[in-house]
């Protein structure tokens, strides 16, 4: 019963009969057919066998006899039939071994299957009564039964049809097989005459022809209609002997000489291609698609007979005249097939008429385009010989051909590509393009999904994080949204955190390391200075003692000294004023007014030493001793005379340096020097700066040290203080000043730049950048400033911040020097810009940083290459890499 239901459902379901259910259903049916109660034998029993072979036989052949009796006979007939058929079938199976695509001939399906299976309803109901069965068979008589099964997975016989014309005298069973590979209706018609194998083959050919014709005529006339005129089917019933040799391929519309060639043709590339195209068209858009796809180009003409689309009337005429067309016509005449009129069919066929009309309305005639791009090649007499299309790069001799070309698709495509991008060109959809389009759609989908996912991620991941952070940080704006500087340069005034080293930076730093004084040199200098300072203090104490020796016993001096030591400050190494006054003494000096205050109040390091600008090879440093009163020559002489004694006392007996003390009255200074270092000790006093009234000057005229020298020494004090407060704190500033000092030593054009002016200049330049500069940037910016004419006469000058009135720190520079300095800076600037900073710094160019940027991008690569050349890493780069490596691999690849 279930099988019957299945069958029933199947008949109405038509082509949708599924592969999965096929075997089960048929299995059930087979059992049903041989069962004793099987009146069902009146209708076709199907056996689906795993051997890849199927049978269908029509029990209606035995309708003269009782259904019960013939159930058995039918089985017997089937086996006999099987034997005769097997050879053919194996062949067919071998030829079309693959799985089945969808039903290729929907029209056939619709017209043929329906009428056949409207009747089985009566089968199902009237299975028990023979009359009913007869009646049902009779009802089916004018048509025929057709069964379709489309099995996709396992079966090699996917489509099957059988016809039953039970009342016919010939008792013919039309058995139609639609092999999957051809996709066209290749059918076999079978009589129930058992064992008549010779007849079988003959009939097979005839039937195949018949079906081919049927399927061809199907769209227009319909199978049924065709069939009705002669139920006897004279042509097929008694096929002409010739037809046996005629193997006609319906898809390709050619005939083959014999079964062998026919078979070969069916396996051939050409045939398969065509078949695929037909199938594609069918799959693409149902019944009308075949025509529609083929005739996409509007206005084209189609030869129905040969299934050839021509682009124009001329081409069509040429085709009709052509040998190929003639051949087909001949063949068809021979086969007795209907020959469509030679009137060209407009593309799309009848069914597409309205669609086509739309096309016609939109584009009545293809406008020739690109007339300008076709040049005429003329003969000497001015007659046009040939034409050359510059867009498509092709030639024609015929004006007609030129016209055709201008309307043609290829030309239009070129025109669209090269001249007018919005020109509409109908595109022929090819397999390739379709595949591309599909792939593209697929990619788009994937990408969209990816974006969607990422967005989700952003929303739920980062977005929240960000909001939260904003919340907790309150009003603090992230730096990148910070207020913009008043001019629109990017990167200025923004704290970008750590910036990677540039090549310029590395050069500057390398040079800096070169010119920076060595440890030994610094030690020498510091020892000499410290000794001098302590000796001076000792001297100061001695002077003070001698000044008040009546009242103060000598013992106190020792106490004072001890006090000082308790302070922990033995010399001026912190670059601040090293006061000689003891704490108690300070208070005392004010209270005991009668006492003469200390003549030497303190000493301070100034100049290079104080600023930390010493370079390699510098051996002169400066100290300034502040005196209570105007320093006099007498005092200076006293200092010069006593200092050696105190020096010897300070440094301890028998120690290395042998200090030599010189008196330089013109400088207002004493020079203390040993083998390596010269310490210039200048005497000055704050009093010198006060406006000197005439009387004072007259009084000490002879004795007082030169005023200018004293003032210079005072200025040096202020400069040192300014430097420590302003310049030393700026990033890169001290480095650049050292570099510039080196420059001044090397290059004559730069020599006139005095060191204080240079410090002012550098500090100003670095400070005005508004952000921390790397050494390379700072040097370049300095060059930019000088090159831009900062130091020329019309410039603002370098205001001395250590003077009350406006003083130009570089005021005394002669014009030619300024000019030369500017020119030199300009040259340097361009050299820096063009990666020749080594020329500016007078050094060897450093090799390019190996991993300056790439490594950051590809950490793995850096790690590997680093292990290779760890040893010849030119600078500190290697160190950083190493730490990183350590953290990366957690010491695994450290040996």
């Amino acid at each position, binding site marked *: 019963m279930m099988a019957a239901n299945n069958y029933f459902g199947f008949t109405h379901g038509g082509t949708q009969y599924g592969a999965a259910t096929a075997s089960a259903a048929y299995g059930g049916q087979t059992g049903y057919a041989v069962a004793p109660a099987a009146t069902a034998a009146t209708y076709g029993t199907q056996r689906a066998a795993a051997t890849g072979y199927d049978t269908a036989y029509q029990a209606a052949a035995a309708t003269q006899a009782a259904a019960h009796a013939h159930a058995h006979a039918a089985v017997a007939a089937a086996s006999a039939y099987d034997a005769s058929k097997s050879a053919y079938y194996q062949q067919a199976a071998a030829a079309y071994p693959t799985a089945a695509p969808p039903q290729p001939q929907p029209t056939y399906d619709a017209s043929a299957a329906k009428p056949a299976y409207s009747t089985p309803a009566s089968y199902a109901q009237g299975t028990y009564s023979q009359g009913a069965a007869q009646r049902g068979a009779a009802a089916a008589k004018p048509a025929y039964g057709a069964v379709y099964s489309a099995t996709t997975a396992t079966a090699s016989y996917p489509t099957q049809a059988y016809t039953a014309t039970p009342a016919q005298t010939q008792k013919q069973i039309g058995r139609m097989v639609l092999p999957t590979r051809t996709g066209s209706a290749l059918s076999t018609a079978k009589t129930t005459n058992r064992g008549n194998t010779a007849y079988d083959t003959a009939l097979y050919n005839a039937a195949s022809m018949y079906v081919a014709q049927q399927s061809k005529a199907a769209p227009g006339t319909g199978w049924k209609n065709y069939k009705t005129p002669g139920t006897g089917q004279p042509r097929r019933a008694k096929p002409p002997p010739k037809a046996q040799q005629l193997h006609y391929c319906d898809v390709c519309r050619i005939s083959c000489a014999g079964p062998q060639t026919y078979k070969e043709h069916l396996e051939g590339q050409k045939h398969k291609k065509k078949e695929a195209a037909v199938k594609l068209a069918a799959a693409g858009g149902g019944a009308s698609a075949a025509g529609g796809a083929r005739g996409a180009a509007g206005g084209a003409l189609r030869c129905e007979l040969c299934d050839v689309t021509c682009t124009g009337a001329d081409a069509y005429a040429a085709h009709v005249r052509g040998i190929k067309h003639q051949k087909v016509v001949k063949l068809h005449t021979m086969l007795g097939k209907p020959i469509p009129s030679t009137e060209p069919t407009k593309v799309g066929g009848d069914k597409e008429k309205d669609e086509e009309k739309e096309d016609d309305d939109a584009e009545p005639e293809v406008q020739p385009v690109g007339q*300008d*791009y076709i040049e005429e090649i003329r003969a000497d007499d001015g007659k046009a010989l040939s034409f050359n299309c510059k867009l498509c790069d092709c030639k024609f001799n015929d004006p007609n051909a030129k016209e055709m070309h201008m309307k043609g698709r290829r030309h239009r495509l070129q025109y669209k*590509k*090269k*001249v*007018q*991008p*919005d020109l509409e060109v109908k595109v022929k959809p090819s397999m390739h393009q379709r595949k591309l389009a599909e792939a593209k759609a697929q990619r788009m989908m994937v990408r969209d999904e990816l974006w969607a996912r*990422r967005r989700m*991620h952003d929303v739920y991941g*980062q977005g929240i994080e*960000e909001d939260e952070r904003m919340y907790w940080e309150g009003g603090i704006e992230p730096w*990148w949204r910070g207020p913009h500087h008043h*001019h*629109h*340069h*990017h*990167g*200025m005034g923004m704290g970008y*955190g*750590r*910036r*990677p080293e*540039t090549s310029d930076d590395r050069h500057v730093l390398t040079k800096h390391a070169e010119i920076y004084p060595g440890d030994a040199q610094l030690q020498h200098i510091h020892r000499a200075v410290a000794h001098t300072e302590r000796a001076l203090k000792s001297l100061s104490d001695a002077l003070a003692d001698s000044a008040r020796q009546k009242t103060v016993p000598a013992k106190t001096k020792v106490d004072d000294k001890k006090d000082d030591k308790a302070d922990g400050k033995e010399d001026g190494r912190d670059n601040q004023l090293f006061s000689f006054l003891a704490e108690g003494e300070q208070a005392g000096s004010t209270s005991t007014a009668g006492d003469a205050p200390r003549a030497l109040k303190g000493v301070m390091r100034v100049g290079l030493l104080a600023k930390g600008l010493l370079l390699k090879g510098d051996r002169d440093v400066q100290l300034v001793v502040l005196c209570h009163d105007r320093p006099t020559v007498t005092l200076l002489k006293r200092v010069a005379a006593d200092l050696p004694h105190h020096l010897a006392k300070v440094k301890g007996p028998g120690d290395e340096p042998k200090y030599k003390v010189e008196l330089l009255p013109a400088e207002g200074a004493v020079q203390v020097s040993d083998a390596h270092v010269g310490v210039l000790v200048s005497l000055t006093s704050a009093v010198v700066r006060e406006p000197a009234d005439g009387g004072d000057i007259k009084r000490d005229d002879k004795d007082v040290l030169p005023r200018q020298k004293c003032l210079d020494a005072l200025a040096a004090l202020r400069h040192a203080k300014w430097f420590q407060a302003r310049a030393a704190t700026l990033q890169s500033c001290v480095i650049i000043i050292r570099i510039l000092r080196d420059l001044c030593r090397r290059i004559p054009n730069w020599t006139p730049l005095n060191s204080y002016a240079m410090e002012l200049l550098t500090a100003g*330049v670095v400070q*005005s950048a508004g952000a921390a500069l790397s050494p390379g940037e700072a040097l370049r910016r*300095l060059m*930019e*400033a000088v*090159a*831009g*004419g*900062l130091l*020329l*006469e019309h410039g*603002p*000058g*370098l*205001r001395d911040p250590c003077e009350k009135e406006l003083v*130009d720190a570089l*005021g005394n520079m002669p*014009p*030619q020097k300024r*000019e030369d300095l*500017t*020119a030199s800076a*300009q*040259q340097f*600037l*361009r050299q*820096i*810009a*063009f990666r*020749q900073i080594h020329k500016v710094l007078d050094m060897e160019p450093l090799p390019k940083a190996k991993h*300056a*940027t790439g490594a*950051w991008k590809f*950490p793995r690569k850096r790690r590997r290459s680093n292990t290779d050349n760890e040893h010849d890493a030119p600078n500190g780069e290697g160190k950083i890499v190493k*730490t*990183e490596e350590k953290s990366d691999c957690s010491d695994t690849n450290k040996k």
Partner: protein
Amino acid sequence: MVRGIGRGGRGIPGRGGMGRPPFNRPRVLMLRPPFDLLLAEPAFPRCKPAPDDSVLTQALLKRHTELCPSPTDQAAVLSLVTKLQTVLDNIVVAPGEFAACQLEEVRQVGSYKKGTMMAGKNVADIVVIMKTLPTKEAVEGLSNKVNEEVNKLMKAEGSGAVVSACHERGFTVTGTSAAVRVLITTLHQNLRKIEPDVHLDYKVISSHLAAIRHSRWFEENAHHSSSKVLIRLLRDMCSRHSGLVPLTPWMIDLLAHHCIMNNPQRQALPINVAFRRALSLMAGGLFLPGCAGLPDPCEAAHSRAHTALDLAAQDLAAATAQTLLRVVARGGHLYVLGLQPFEGGKDISLEITVWDGVVVSPLAPAYNDSPEPMDTDDKDSV
């Protein structure tokens, strides 16, 4: 420890890359603007009386009047431009049987549009945006059509005929006393379809599109008349000194605008100050590699105006400006401005000159085509 964390993908807002190194993202340009004395004023307060610059100011103004086109010239250009605009507009609106190309839009650009035309150069520029692709034939067709139509108008008016000649940028319609260059370009989406042998050059076409953007930017931002004065002066100066010739008008526009307007007060600076500033900036390496230069407001972010020049030209331009700066500082502005020809028309930026005993000498180029390529890329981008 990851280096460069501060500028990696995490530091930039809006990038979803969670801690993943930005592989193909261009590295952030971290360039410094050059030293600009005007902006660094607080660090370098003036400590001596400002020099009397009235001589320079007067010379600048005098030269400017010489450079301004006369009213008759302007009228001539105006009339020709108007006619062309009419003709082209007609083609845009109603092409009729004209099929050589389809026009999208017609715009006036360049010095005429900006009001920075120079005397003696009565050439206006019009950019025609084609809907179709700019093949040479299309240009020729348009040229013929325009020629015909303009001549019709001219005949009706009774004035002289015009001639139209094609060149690689479009075509030029030349009248008796004025000329209009019609620059051809195409829609932006068509740009990638350009083929070198069929169409006009890609660079030319995109430069014409850029010209439209430049005109618009100028109209919106740089219309101050001081800018225009400075533009004329600088263009004149650049045209007379070989090293500065490669500077494009657009660069000069940007430079002039920067010099006039970009100061803390946002008020136009006096012309003499701006002129000195322009020279000083150029001498200070504004247009050298590794400098932030002037950001191009009409291009994508971080694009710098001076990258249009090749390295040798950048070097030469900077060197020339540096020499001129020193010449002007010695009082040689008459020669620099072109008020006096220098020794029979020699280029003063290439000669050694003596001013009150001070020798000013030109500079040698720093850029050399070294065998190992100087990859400024590294330098530019860090």
